[in-house]
């Protein structure tokens, strides 16, 4: 990613048809510490790598509860993430006030994506520098989405964003076939293994990672440190995975880089009856 004469303004196209400022915003997401998400038929688990730049510093909060049925993990400019999570909480609570029922995850994700898109088309704004993994449940089951600074959103079975996310992604790619049938505990273990991959040589403790779970009939909960340590200790009993070699991320495109098991963007798991929705154009 080199400087060029078309990257000063977010509203300037490059001759190659790219908005460099938007891509630079996605770079900011890649520089942030990793966030990982994966889902089964009943639950969605979010895990984060909490890197503190010094021993004296407490860890940044990267997991946010949005509503009883939705939570997010962020990577990138966490300040931008806080603003977005405040917006998401507001939308959820407004919907609840009018309808007394939870806002479907997919619809919230689109609201956030539309908000992000506005910032890519105004000369006096800048794109949000945060990527979100949105985990939630609604009438149609558990879902995991990613929101990009570009205004794109994708649904995933499992995904990782942020620095050294490729290592986690490689682990997820290997194992995702089994995720749908996993129990809550198995899913949590997979998430922690994926975090381990991103941490590479560092030891996994309850102070350098975060974990949250949401499921059908299971309110979104950020797992507290004691329980988290217990989960980590239980990993020792499971077989160890070989750490995957860290790979260079692909140069950024307007859509995010190397993707994992992308479902029809904008679509949702189809219910048993009826056809699925038409995939939106990317």
């Amino acid at each position: 990613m080199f400087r060029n004469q078309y990257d000063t303004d977010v509203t300037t196209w490059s001759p190659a048809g790219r908005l460099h400022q938007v891509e630079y915003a996605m770079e900011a997401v890649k520089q942030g510490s990793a966030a990982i998400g994966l889902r089964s038929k009943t639950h969605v688990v979010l895990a984060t790598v909490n890197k503190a730049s010094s021993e004296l510093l407490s860890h940044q909060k990267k997991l946010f509860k949005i509503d009883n049925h939705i939570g997010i993990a962020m990577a990138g400019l966490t300040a931008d993430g806080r603003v977005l999570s405040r917006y998401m909480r507001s939308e959820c609570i407004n919907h609840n006030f009018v309808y007394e029922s939870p806002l479907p995850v997919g619809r919230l994700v689109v609201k956030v994506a539309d908000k992000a898109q506005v910032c890519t088309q105004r000369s006096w704004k800048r794109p949000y520098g945060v990527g979100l993994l949105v985990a939630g449940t609604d009438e149609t089951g558990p879902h995991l989405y990613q929101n990009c600074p570009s205004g794109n959103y994708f649904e995933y079975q499992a995904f990782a964003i942020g620095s050294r996310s490729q290592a986690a992604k490689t682990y997820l790619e290997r194992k995702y076939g089994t995720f749908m049938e996993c129990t809550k505990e198995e899913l949590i273990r997979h998430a922690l293994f994926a975090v381990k991959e991103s941490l590479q040589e560092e030891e996994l403790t309850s102070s350098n990672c975060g974990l949250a779970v949401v499921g059908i009939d299971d309110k979104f909960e950020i797992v507290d440190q004691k329980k988290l340590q217990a989960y980590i200790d239980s990993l020792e009993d499971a077989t160890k995975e070989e750490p995957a070699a860290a790979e260079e991320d692909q140069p950024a495109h307007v859509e995010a880089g190397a993707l994992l098991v992308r479902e029809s963007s904008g679509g949702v798991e189809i219910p048993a009856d009826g056809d699925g929705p038409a995939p939106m154009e990317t």
Partner: protein
Amino acid sequence: MTGKQPYVGQALDSPHAFTLAPGPTKHTQYPYVTGTSVLGIKYKDGVLIAADTAGSYGSTVRYKSVERLKPCGKHCLIGASGEISDFQQILTYVDKLILNDYMWDDGNNLSPRDIHNYLTRVMYNKRNNFDPLWNTLVIGGVKNGEKYLGVVTMIGVQFEDNHVASGFGNHLARPIFRDEWHENMTLEEGTQLLEKALTVLYYRDRSAINKVQVANITAEGINISEPYALKTNWEYKAFKNPTAGAVGSW
């Protein structure tokens, strides 16, 4: 709802140069064409809601084929008493909601509970602005196996129950329901109960007519019957020579 009021120009030397013209009154002060009671009960397979098809213009029974029960989406039915034009307005609001769901096409659909709460917000909000929709709404439906039956009034009062009624139905039908309603009635039992209440209403409510519709909402869908007449009996001895015991012109 607030538009710009037109300015009426006057002679520049008059003390009222450029005053606001009085705009049209946009507040519903009183109803004109009204529907009478709506009745609703839960039964084994779902919800039954009934109403007659009369639209009264004050004391005149002016319109006799007014459909006061309308389906909204696949899971929900709304019945209204009160001002018919306000009911039609409410239907446009709900229609927009249903259309929104249809356009999303993401497997998420509004439940009867969602619609009930939405309408409560609308009714209460308009009441607070002294511009009510002059209706009492009965909302019923079945979604994900859950039977739902509730009421919203023109001032935004909201509640749910196993059997509900609006207007005169509250005074004449509810006592019958309290005595004779029980859990898991069959379709036949439920329909009979509603018809008994509707007959009493026809005898005693001057705005009611003998042309009724009964709507059945189950997990399979919504079915609104064609209008039909109730069996009535006018052969009671007391009906012959009704003024026998009350001579005079009063």
